[in-house]
């Protein structure tokens, strides 16, 4: 689909693709990508487009399926108009597609892929999110020092993200003097019932439950914990930031602590502007996934502006980006095309997300 | 020589003894008929001979070998082949293929030969196809080779079933009501055919309600009722046996 904002030279276009799950069980994340990038594109076009040409986005659905992702990648690589790709959402899709992008020499800037191997797949892979090597130790510090909990039970989702989160969290927490008393896992989208997991955690008598999970499961975990009559403090990662979580679990998640890349209450002007615009357009506050997609497009557009319409040059330009003022803070690509972002700690208080520190 | 010897065979379903303590024997080259009222246990008897049911009691000795409780796919290798009371062809296979499946137990091509289409493969396929067609010709089905079995008329299906059983070159052929659903003319032709088989040395055990056929063709007859053998002997004796008349033949016969 095309999103056009009347402004620059409408006869000439610069095309950037957004590849994400727009249908299937992960469609909500793809939609966050879509809304955020559409918003950014409007802004760019209102400000005169890229190289004086209109920025056109093209959206491709990969259903979060490895095979479809490679199909999409092949399509995009072959379409000479496409100068860069924002995507894909998950590691499965991103990694499967990466060899195609690398061969085709097309920038694959994933706002969300946190798999440690992703940027090792080639020179054209970029990511705009902390790997768990960065985030999980911060979370460990939050749990052990800020919350002062030593006996920790971990529940993590059995995917690449969850496993790396667990590994780095456990390592850091133990280094800080914490003790891991239980580690439990589950398959996302498949397990709905956490009572047995929670019961066996309960028998280990932890001080806190740390969640390497997404908001949907977290809602269920919190609810079921409450129903079982257990009352453990909860802590998690930036993946939990979603307004839906509070709707889903209500007071069962009251007092939950988490790390955050992005938080709508952020006072920095870039963030504030984005949140306001997003709210105006969609009637809800953006989540982390929207935020990273939004700024990813900003960076890619910037790189095209300087490099011109040449894929290799765009890659080189993108790799040079440093101190980009994004909505999640200042962004610099490392030489491995990874980012390190500042994180804040937020918590749920009186049914709202608030800055804890 | 006794080809088949059955001793005290019993088959119980729960409390019901469908076949009750039957002893029975057959010589090579005989045609023997098994008759009796509906539900007397005739088909059940066949099912035990062919390994579909495992007898509750008793033994079956075939060709000097105890085959009681042997699985159906092995029984046919021993040399007993059958037809079914309710036709059980392979409906979506051609007539020829039906017969070729009948030859399964007498042929050997395995994965290797099939995959690499060895000389042996072609030899066996050729030989089998040739034999199958010969057999089909004997029942006037040669021109139906490539027809699906399900598209055959009823009488043709019956004949195909017989040929399929014969394809296994059995020492003993079991026919379960082969004439059912045939008109008198077809029955006549069937009778000739069975005679022809006998002349070539076949041994046949026949279940049939068509008394004309049974009486004309059988060397001996066994009569079952309620699972029990109530009479045995030559056609004449059976026809005049009061018990048989009462239980089975009725006054009209």
């Amino acid at each position: 689909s095309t999103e056009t904002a009347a402004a620059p030279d409408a006869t000439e276009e610069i095309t950037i693709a957004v590849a994400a799950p727009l249908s299937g069980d992960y469609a909500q994340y793809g939609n966050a990508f879509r809304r955020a990038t559409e918003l950014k594109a409007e802004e760019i076009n209102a400000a005169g487009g890229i190289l004086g040409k209109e920025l056109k986005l093209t959206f491709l659905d990969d259903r979060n399926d490895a095979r479809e992702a490679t199909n999409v990648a092949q399509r995009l690589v072959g379409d000479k108009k496409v100068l860069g790709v924002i995507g894909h959402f998950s590691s499965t899709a991103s990694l499967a597609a990466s060899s195609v992008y690398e061969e085709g020499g097309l920038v694959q800037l994933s706002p969300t892929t946190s798999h440690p191997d992703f940027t090792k797949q080639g020179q054209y892979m970029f990511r705009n999110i902390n790997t768990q090597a960065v985030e999980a130790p911060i979370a460990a510090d939050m749990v052990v020092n800020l919350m002062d909990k030593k006996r920790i039970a971990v529940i993590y989702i059995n995917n690449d993200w969850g496993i790396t989160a667990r590994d780095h969290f456990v390592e850091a927490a133990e280094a800080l003097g914490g003790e891991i008393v239980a580690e439990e896992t589950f398959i996302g989208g498949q397990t709905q019932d956490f009572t047995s997991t929670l019961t066996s955690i309960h028998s280990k008598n932890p001080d806190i439950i740390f969640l390497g999970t997404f908001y949907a499961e977290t809602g269920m975990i919190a609810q079921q914990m409450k129903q079982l009559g257990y009352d453990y403090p909860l802590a998690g990662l930036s993946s939990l930031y979603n307004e839906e979580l509070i709707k889903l679990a209500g007071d069962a998640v009251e007092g939950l602590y988490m790390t955050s890349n992005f938080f709508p209450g952020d006072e920095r002007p870039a963030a504030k502007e984005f949140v306001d615009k997003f709210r105006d357009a969609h009637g809800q506050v953006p989540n982390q996934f929207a935020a990273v997609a939004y700024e990813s497009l900003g960076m890619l557009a910037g790189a095209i502006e300087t490099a011109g319409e040449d894929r290799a040059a765009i890659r080189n330009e993108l790799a040079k980006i440093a101190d980009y003022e994004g909505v999640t803070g200042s962004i610099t690509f490392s030489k491995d095309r990874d980012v390190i972002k500042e994180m804040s700690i937020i918590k749920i208080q009186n049914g709202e997300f608030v800055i804890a520190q | 020589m006794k080809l088949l010897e059955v001793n005290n065979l019993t088959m119980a379903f729960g409390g019901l003894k469908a076949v009750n303590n039957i002893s029975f024997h057959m010589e090579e080259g005989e045609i023997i008929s098994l008759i009796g009222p509906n539900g007397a246990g005739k088909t059940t008897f066949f099912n035990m001979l062919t390994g579909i049911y495992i007898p509750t009691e008793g033994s079956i000795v075939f060709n000097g070998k105890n085959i009681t409780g042997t699985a159906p796919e092995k029984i046919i290798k021993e040399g007993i082949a059958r037809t079914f009371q309710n036709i059980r062809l392979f409906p979506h296979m051609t007539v020829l293929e039906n017969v070729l499946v009948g030859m399964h137990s007498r042929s050997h091509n395995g994965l290797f030969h099939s995959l690499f289409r060895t000389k042996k493969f072609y030899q066996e396929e050729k030989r089998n196809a040739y034999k199958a067609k010969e057999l089909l010709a004997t029942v006037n089905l040669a021109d139906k080779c490539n027809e699906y079995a399900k598209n055959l008329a009823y009488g043709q299906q019956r004949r195909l079933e017989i040929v399929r059983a014969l394809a296994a070159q059995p020492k003993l052929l079991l026919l379960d009501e082969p004439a059912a659903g045939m008109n008198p003319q077809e029955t006549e032709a069937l009778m000739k055919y069975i005679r022809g088989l006998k002349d070539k040395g076949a041994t046949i055990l026949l279940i049939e309600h068509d008394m004309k056929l049974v009486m004309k063709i059988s060397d001996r007859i066994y009569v079952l009722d309620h699972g029990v053998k109530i009479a045995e002997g030559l056609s004449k004796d059976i026809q005049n046996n009061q018990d048989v008349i009462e239980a089975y033949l009725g006054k009209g016969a």
Partner: protein
Amino acid sequence: MFFQQIINGITLGSIYALTAVGYTMVFGILELVNFSHGSVYMFGAFLCLTLMTALGLGFFPAFIISIVITGMLGIVIDRLALLPLRRKNAPKVASLISTIGISIFLQNLVMVMWGSETKNFPLALNLGHIQFNSFRISYLQMIILLTSLILMMGLTLLVKKTKIGKAMRATAQNMEAAKLMGINVNLIITFTFFLGAALATVAGVMVGMYYQSVDPMMGFMAGLKAFAAAVLGGIGVLPGAILGGLIIGVSETLAAGYIHSGYRDAIAFAILIAVLLIKPTGLLGQKVQKKV
């Protein structure tokens, strides 16, 4: 901990049982592996939720209305997708693929209509719980188990004793002969689908309420587990569905609690396979003696 785990297992099991009862009924009557059951279950839950939140209906009216509407959806599914296949004497697998089509269709429709986010389902029947020493049972858990038992008994009576039940069985066993008895076969099958969809809704809503959340994918695993439970219990045997559901639920829970949470479904399926190896016709399924 052990008692609590058993309670957890029985609850999960009764959720499976609840889903499996409807599944096994349609399964038993139509001998159709029905992959649309899970998505109908999900649809029913979403509908009930929407009626409550968007139209502000109370739980019970919303529940009843969604049962009826989803039941009609069942009819539509039958008429549009499966009846044409029956008309043409299609093989069973063709219908199976159609039900897969239905399930893909429904799931994606719901996603487009309601979004793919997990949504909160209000705990409309918050009845509290009984606390024992080391474990607790909530009344909702008991209601779920009870509902599945009641449905099982009700359906058993329906299928075994009533005229329509006999017509259902006759239709399953020989459609042509059923017509010759004067049974309106298509009406019977449509009714079966209505009932199946209505039962799926009952399960979907109760499960949604129990977990206080619904999402468009909730029916997928539920459908598979219901299928597993139905087969484990013996196809078409209603009490078997309950038993099968409970066994899968308890084994899964104990596996997660005592062996490894990552392997829970694997262990549950391994137990299922092991049971079927010992009893090839399912726990309560009867071996039919072949008669030729």
